[in-house]
């Protein structure tokens, strides 16, 4: 039997490559200076889902939430082997904290009705590791965090090895489950050239809308809103026929209660942001000589740092 998997993926700023201009003078993050990347452990989650499909059959749907440029992350999923991409994009979802995000994702997952939801253990921008557990809570799925090896899938039972910090646990549970996957679980496959050829023109509706001007021939000004909409619909249909339309859902499409989305759905508020400022240059320089080192050791002893 096959298993239907949904993989939650996030596009994140590359916090590991922070350079001098990553912070603006007012202490806020200069997103433009940071490249957007595929959250690393979400790649491990995707890989695990692809392995499940290869071993047992079924489907892999990549799900993401964010602004329209996040479509790029879903294309990456298609290049690597996902069957389908779904983007949740809606201005009313902006500024969602982890709780609101998990609520919104839960609505999409309920529409997709998977057997297994896979998330990366955590995203590198916030490092909270909260959305996976919170999403499991909202879905009522059994939660397995920190999975480093999927040992067995047998009918309605999943068995996995979890990293519990000071060791591991072998656990099993009935489906449906939500697992969070660590980087130790696997080595993500690279994009496949053949799939890049097929999916490089995969687009979401909002991307098609952005391209509308280029699609329409002649004088763009002469087109009415209806004509433009018809052109967008026509092009989306063409992409859909080719199997390369990335689904795009709004909060309304999913029947979301807006009180639980975005700013109003987020209990946590930012009180203050400070950039980490280095003091710099306040240390005492010790010459790298025998005398220098010896006098340092002497001093550390006399002020009882040593001894």
């Amino acid at each position, binding site marked *: 039997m096959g298993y239907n998997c949904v993989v939650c993926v996030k596009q994140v700023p590359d916090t590991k490559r922070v350079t001098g201009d990553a912070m603006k003078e007012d202490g806020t993050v200069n997103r433009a200076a940071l490249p957007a990347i595929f959250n690393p452990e979400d790649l491990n989650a995707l890989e695990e889902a692809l392995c499940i499909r290869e071993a047992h059959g079924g489907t892999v749907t990549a799900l993401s939430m964010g602004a329209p440029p996040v479509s790029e992350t879903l294309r990456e999923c298609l290049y690597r082997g996902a069957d389908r991409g779904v983007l949740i994009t809606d201005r009313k979802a902006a500024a969602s904290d982890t709780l609101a995000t998990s609520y919104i994702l839960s609505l999409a997952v309920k529409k997709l009705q998977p057997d297994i939801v896979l998330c990366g253990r955590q995203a590198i921008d916030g490092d909270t590791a909260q959305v996976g557990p919170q999403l*499991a809570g909202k879905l009522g799925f059994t939660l397995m965090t*920190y999975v480093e090896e999927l040992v067995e899938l047998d009918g309605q039972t999943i068995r996995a090895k979890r990293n519990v910090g000071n060791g591991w*646990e072998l656990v099993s549970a009935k489906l449906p489950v939500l697992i969070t996957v660590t980087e130790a679980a696997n080595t993500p496959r690279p994009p496949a050239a053949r799939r890049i050829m097929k999916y490089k023109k995969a687009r979401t509706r909002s991307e098609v809308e952005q391209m509308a001007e280029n699609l329409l021939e002649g004088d763009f000004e002469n087109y009415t809103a209806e004509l433009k909409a018809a052109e967008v619909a026509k092009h989306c249909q063409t992409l859909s026929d080719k199997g390369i339309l990335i689904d795009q859902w709004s909060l309304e499409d999913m029947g979301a209660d807006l009180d639980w989305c975005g700013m109003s759905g*987020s209990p946590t*508020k930012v*009180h203050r942001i400070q*950039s980490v400022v280095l003091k710099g240059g306040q240390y005492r320089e010790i010459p*790298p000589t025998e005398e220098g080192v010896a006098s340092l*050791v*002497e001093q550390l002893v006399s002020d009882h740092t040593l001894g």
Partner: protein
Amino acid sequence: MIDTNKQGEVWIFAEQEEGNLSDVPLELMTKGRQLAETLSVPLGAVLLGDAVSPLAGKLIAHGADKVYLVEHPKLAQYQTTGYSKAICELIEQYKPQICLYGATPVGRDLAPTVASTMWCGLTADCTDLQIGDHTDPISKQEHKNLLQQIRPAFGGNIIATIVNPSRWPQMATVREGVMPMSEPIASRKGQIIQCQADLDELDLPLTIEQTHRRPKRVNLKAARVIVAGGAGIGSRKNFDVLWELAGCLGAAVAGSRAAVDLGFIDHDHQVGQTGTTVRPALYIAAGISGAVQHRAGMQDSAKVLAINTDPKADIFSVAHYGIVGDFMEVVPKMIKAIRGGSDVKEAVASSQA
């Protein structure tokens, strides 16, 4: 979610494993005590497990005014659903204003599940907590005495202070090792409140078939002096000189994430955002560039000595003493100075005694 409740208690989750409390809940007690005193409310410890009542006294000695004790055979081993259900029931009943958890594998699994069920806010991995006021930037509404949850974000490049003004309890996980543990006072008095948990088979959806716990071989947090190496050490073999220095200082050896990833030293020894947070009397950083993730784990050390060939390395920004030079030359000189000076030897020997 519960309503805001200014008389609500401050709670900490007293994580235990096989009937033993780790350092984390005891570190939380110190901070919890401060918060509770600032708010003039009791400090409660929530203790779940099977036959764990002997731990209640220890929690009281470390500062708990009340211990909410939930004993149940189904709570013998941690699993998400049962534990979160029991805690949610307690929160509904007693309406605490603050709930703190250690940012451990268990705490980071449990707290978001409780937050999801309670529809309340949660801040991960805090390094400090304070009580303070907050004015909503849009509505201008003022909130007095909120829990200010302070944490690094964005890979450690910013420090964010988060509040949860209305959907309570205010919950946070707190990073291990960032808050000092206070000494127990055996004469402290507290109240033990026996609570029931209504758990059935559905609350234990996981079957834990095997557990394999590996005792932690190093206790970096307890070390008075730490000798740490980074990618600049170059190899596992080159780490030997750091082990030797540590040996003559009675120090622990640590590594940056880069050194661990490169296989120079085991993960138990890792200091930094994804490792252990330490605050020794002296932290010797050799061949460590000082990425913000590493500094987050050691910058509260009383003294920092940085040894690096690159005078522009970030590690110097948190150093008290800096040696610009190759550790392969500098460290042997230190070893020689320590072994050579009899005063030094005696001082080091007495510190190890």
